């Protein structure tokens, strides 16, 4: 997966959870939850969406890596 | 253009007296032509509402105004086109007012019956018979209290004499010795009812006399006579002589208003009065004096026609006040300047 594909996937998953959330609004280093006003269930849905789309297991211990846009892209491109 | 027209220089004057008489003639003719044009505009629906014409009565307005200075005040009635023009309101603003345009002297708020102009101290345009008299008394009271030697000329018709406000105002003006020049234009009819059917005493100057107000009767069809009387009265008022009263015997050649079938007057009576038309009378006098030559009158007519046409063109090209301004001037927009 390229980083563009990763970003597109994130955008698509996010849209189904929080239609008004805009990935481009998230500053570097800012957590998705903070920037996009996601609660723990939203975040879980987000991870679930990514997991389903990629077939990755995404265990809970990896959540911190998924908490930022950059982290997410790195995670998706490297796995 | 207006200036050129109103300048008497276009007619050669032999003497100052001649020049003055020509000026009076011109002023009366301006009013006559203006009002004749009004009839046409009314018939064409450019003017609406009530339209009261003073055709035949021009000598009263023109004669009295000659006696006033710019500082004096004028309170008139609803038949006041002549008073407005003779007082110096622009014909353009007056015609625009009749057409209901915002360029009119009352922004189209008043129409024919309510011409106002602060710059010439012209306080309307009062369409309640005798309603202007208390106002004039008050204007004079203000002058009296402030020690100003000014005259307030108040016009009203013979119909006003029957109103309580007439008597209250006569009494108050006399009692307080106020500088009011009461100018009664007696055209013999209160709208459509002859004086003899409404007044127990038809000699109106007697009524003023009963309030100890010096009063004159004058031929209202003779502008020179009106002017003479008015000058004498105005000087007396200005000199601290208290209110004075002029009864001008006059006649309107046309009906009370546009919608008046004029059933109450004998045609013969109207025709009889037309023989005293102040305009041909003065023109004849001037001709006799050799003050005007052949063609002068026509030239004056043509200049006046141009002025009237200019006023109509101006009024036609005028604009209607925006609807959003409907509620403007119900109350003042600025409270400044009114601080006691």
């Amino acid at each position, binding site marked *: 997966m390229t980083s563009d594909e990763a970003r597109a996937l994130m955008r698509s998953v996010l849209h189904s959870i929080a239609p008004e959330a805009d990935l481009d609004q998230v500053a570097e280093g800012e957590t998705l939850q903070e920037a996009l006003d996601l609660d723990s269930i939203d975040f879980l849905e987000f991870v679930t969406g990514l997991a389903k789309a990629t077939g990755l297991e995404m265990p809970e211990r990896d959540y911190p890596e998924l908490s930022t846009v950059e982290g997410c892209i790195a995670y998706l491109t490297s796995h | 253009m207006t200036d050129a027209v109103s300048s008497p220089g276009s007619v050669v004057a032999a003497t100052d007296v001649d020049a003055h008489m020509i000026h009076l003639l011109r002023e009366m003719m301006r009013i006559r032509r203006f009002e004749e044009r009004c009839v046409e505009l009314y018939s064409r629906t450019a003017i609406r509402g009530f339209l009261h014409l003073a055709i035949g009565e021009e000598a009263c307005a023109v004669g009295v105004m000659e006696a006033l200075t710019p500082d004096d005040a004028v309170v008139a009635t609803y038949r006041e086109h002549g008073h407005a023009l003779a007082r110096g309101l622009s014909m353009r603003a007056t015609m625009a007012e009749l057409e209901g345009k915002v360029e009119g002297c*009352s922004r189209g708020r008043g129409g024919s019956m309510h011409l106002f102009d602060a710059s010439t101290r012209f306080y309307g345009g009062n369409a309640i018979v005798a309603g202007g008299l*208390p106002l004039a008394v008050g204007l004079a009271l203000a002058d009296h209290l402030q020690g100003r030697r000014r005259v307030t000329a108040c016009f009203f018709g013979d119909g006003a004499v029957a109103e309580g406000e007439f008597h209250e*105002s006569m009494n108050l003006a006399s009692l307080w010795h106020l500088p009011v020049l009461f100018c009664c234009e007696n055209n013999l009819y209160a709208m459509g009812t002859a004086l003899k059917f409404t007044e127990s005493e038809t000699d109106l100057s007697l009524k003023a006399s009963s309030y100890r107000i010096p009063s004159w009767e004058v031929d209202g069809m003779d502008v020179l006579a009106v002017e003479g009387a008015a000058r004498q009265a105005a000087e007396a008022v200005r000199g601290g002589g208290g209110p004075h009263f002029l009864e001008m015997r006059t006649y309107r050649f046309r009906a009370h208003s546009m919608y008046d079938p004029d059933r109450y007057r004998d045609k013969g009576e109207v025709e009889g009065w037309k023989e005293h038309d102040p305009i041909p009378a003065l023109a004849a006098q001037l001709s006799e004096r050799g003050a005007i030559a052949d063609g002068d009158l026509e030239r004056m007519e043509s200049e006046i026609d141009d002025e009237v046409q200019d006023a109509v063109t101006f009024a036609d090209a005028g604009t209607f006040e925006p609807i959003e301004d409907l509620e403007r001037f119900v109350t003042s927009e600025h409270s400044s300047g009114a601080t006691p």
Partner: protein
Amino acid sequence: MSTITYREAVRQGIRDALVRDERVFVMGEDIGHYGGCYAVTLGMLEEFGAQRIRDTPLSESAFVGAGIGAALGGMRPIVEIMTVNFSLLALDQIMNNAATLLYMSGGQFNVPLVIRMATGAGRQVAAQHSHSLEGWYAHIPGLRILAPATVEDARGMLWPALNDPDPVLIFEHAMLYNVEGELSDDPVPVDISTAAIRRAGSDVTIIAYGGTVRTALAAAEQLASEGISAEVIDLRCLRPLDTPTIFASVARTHRALVVDEGWRSGGLSAEVSARITEEAFYDLDAPVARVCGAEVPMPYAKHLEDEAIPQVQDVIAAVRQMVA
């Protein structure tokens, strides 16, 4: 602070204006040598002279009209009409001239005139001296209509009224002249545009003005002992009406009662009620109610006169019914 009568407060207001501005003068019937029908102008002739304290003939139309003319001529007249019924003799001047000149002249001639007059019943002077016609005047665009109910307003409303560039009519309820109130020794400026909440409450808004403010306050006091909390609004300015104050109160209490000594039909109470219905309808938890003067020419006999004007018990009964 000192305790003074309403009459004395009005007198102070007039004196103050005469001293402050030489353009101010007073005219009316019996205001000079007699000292004023209600003794408001007593002593002023001696103090200010006959030019500024002008006795007039019994010519309401002429002297009100003269007031208009004098205002146009640069003066600041205070015209006193003895009682509201007499003002009808000057109605032509008030309505056709004072209220319309500015508009008719396209904004050229404003009329800075103040007309004061006594209004209202309670003195057994029957059907030609007792009516409350201020609602009629409040009908007329171009006028400002004031109804001072307190000594503070009695003294303080005149000066801003004289400062108003347009005609102002001040209605003084005849039963208030002898009423005493507390007044600061230094005049506090009052406004002439807003209503005042004279007592705060939460269950019902009682809207009154002039002579009925006292009635409403007395009723509110008694209602409080029954556990009913009534808010009392003193309209103060009957035209233009300060509707925001009324609506805000009704939004809190959800009930409105209008108390007006004037007649019910087509009266000021009808106007206030209609405004509430038009603009605060969804705040209402009960129909707007009114306690008004009986629809009769004012009778002479005391018991009949009492019956004809709003009494404290009438207000209480109306409120009880509304909050039942």
